[in-house]
C-alpha cells in the first residue's frame, strides 16, 4: 500500500474533505507545490487556483480561492475561503463574473478597483478551468 497522509480541507461553511490521500498539489502564493507524505512542516498562504489530490489512485480536483495550508509530515490541513468540487461549480455564473471583470478592466474608468477586478477574473477563470477539466 502506498504511503498516505491525512488530508483535511475546511471552509467557513463546512468541512469539504477529510480523507487519506497519497499526494496533494496546493496552489501556494508563490506557485504550486506538491506534497507527499513525510513533507517538512510548512505553512503557506493559498492563492486562487486548483487543489488536486490523489486518494486510492484517483485524482480529485477542487477550485479554491484564498486560504491557508499547514503541512505536517503525516497530515495536511487546508483552510480555504471557498472550495468547490467541479460538480458544484456554477459555470454560467463564473462565465458572467469573468465577463464582468473583463469589462471593468477594459473600461479604463479610474474608479475601478483594478486589484479587485483582477482577483475576480482570476477566481472566475480558475473555476471555469476546474469545471472544464472534469468533463
Amino acid at each position: 500500500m502506498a504511503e498516505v497522509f491525512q488530508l483535511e480541507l475546511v471552509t467557513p461553511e463546512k468541512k469539504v474533505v477529510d480523507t487519506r490521500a497519497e499526494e496533494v498539489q496546493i496552489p501556494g502564493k508563490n506557485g504550486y507545490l506538491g506534497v507527499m507524505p513525510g513533507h517538512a512542516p510548512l505553512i503557506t498562504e493559498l492563492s486562487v487556483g486548483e487543489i488536486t489530490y490523489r486518494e486510492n489512485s484517483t485524482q480529485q480536483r477542487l477550485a479554491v480561492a484564498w486560504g491557508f495550508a499547514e503541512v505536517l509530515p503525516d497530515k495536511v490541513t487546508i483552510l480555504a475561503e471557498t472550495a468547490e468540487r467541479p460538480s458544484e461549480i456554477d459555470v454560467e455564473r463564473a462565465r458572467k463574473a469573468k465577463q464582468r471583470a473583463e469589462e471593468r478592466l477594459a473600461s479604463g474608468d479610474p474608479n475601478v478597483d483594478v486589484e479587485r477586478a483582477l482577483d475576480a477574473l482570476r477566481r472566475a477563470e480558475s473555476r471555469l478551468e476546474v469545471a472544464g477539466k472534469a468533463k
Partner: protein
Amino acid sequence: MPNVLDIRRRIRSVINTRQITKAMKMVSAAKLRRAQERALAARPYAHMLTNVLKSLVARTDIFDPETGEPKHPLLAQREEKTILLIVVTGDKGLAGAFNANIIKAAMRFLESKSGKNIDIEAVGRKGRDFLRRRYPAAKVQTPGLEELEESVETESKATERAGTIQITGEHVGILGKVEFAQASALARNVIQRYCRQEIDSVYVVFNEFKSVIAQRLIVEQILPIEQIGEQAVRLYEELPEEEKKRAKEAAISAGVGMRDTGTAREPASQFGTAQVDYIYEQAPEDLFRDLLPRYVSVQIFRSLLESVAAEHAARMTAMDSATNNATDMIDSLTLAMNRARQAKITKEIIEIVSGAAAM
C-alpha cells in the same frame, strides 16, 4: 350566561390556533437544528484561523519596536469619536422577546456612548424597521449584502452626517441562508471604513448562542482587535432563568438536542499549533496582514450564524408556550361550556317541575 354554541365555537378556534403554533414550533425546531449544524460547521475554520494568528503573533512583532505603532491598521487604537454598531436582529417576528431584547441592548449601548457619533448597520428586518423610525439614514449607504455579487465599491468620502446617530446600511433578507461571502463583504466594507479612519471602533450586538440553555445577549468589540482569540465582550446579559427553563422544556418536547455548539473538539482546532518549526512560505508579516481581515469576517460570520440559531430557538420557545397556553385555554373553556350546559339543563328541569307543581 354565555351559550353553549358560542363557547363551542371558541374552543374550535383555539384548537385551530394551537395546531398552527404547534406546527410553527416543529418548523422552528427543525430550522434550529440546521442552524446549529451550520454554526458547528463554521467552528473548525474559525479555530484554525485563530490558531495561525496566535502562532504568528508569537513569532513576529506586531508593534513596531521603535515607534510602538502597531504594524497593522486594524490593531490601531484611536480615540473613539465615531463608532460603528452592527445590530443583528431577525427578519421575522413571533419569536417572543428575541428582537425586542436585542433592540433594547442596542439602545442601552447607544445611551452609554451618547455624545459620540454613531453609525449603525442594521442586519435583519425587525431591527431595521425600529431603528429607521428613530434615526436618519446616512446619505451614503453601504451596498446591500443581498445583491453583493461583485458589487463595485463606491469611493465614499466621509460626507456630512445626517445626525449624531445615523444608519449607514440595511441588510434585510440575508438571514434565511447566511453565506460566508456576505459576512466577508460586510467585513470588507467595515475594514475599509476603519482604515480610512471614518470610524474608530466597531461593535456588534447580537444574541450569542452556545446551546439552547446557554445564550446571552452581548455587545462585542470587533475593531480594533485587542487580543486575538479572546472575545472582547463589552456588555452582556444572560437569558433569565425562567426563560432558560422554558427553552429547555421546549427543546425537549421538540426533540432538539441541547448539545453545546461550542465544545466540539475537532482535530482542526489544532491547526498550526504543532510544536515544530514551520517553514513559512511567505514572510510572517505578510501572512499576518492578509489574515487579520479574514479574522474580522469570521467574527461577523459567527455572530450572524449564532443569531440565526438563537432566533429559531426563541421562536421555538415562544411557540411552545403558545401551544401550552392554548391547551390551558381549551381546558378552561371546556369546563365553562359544560357548566353552561349543566345550568341550562337544571333550568329546564326547574321549569318543568315548577310548571307541574302549578297545575
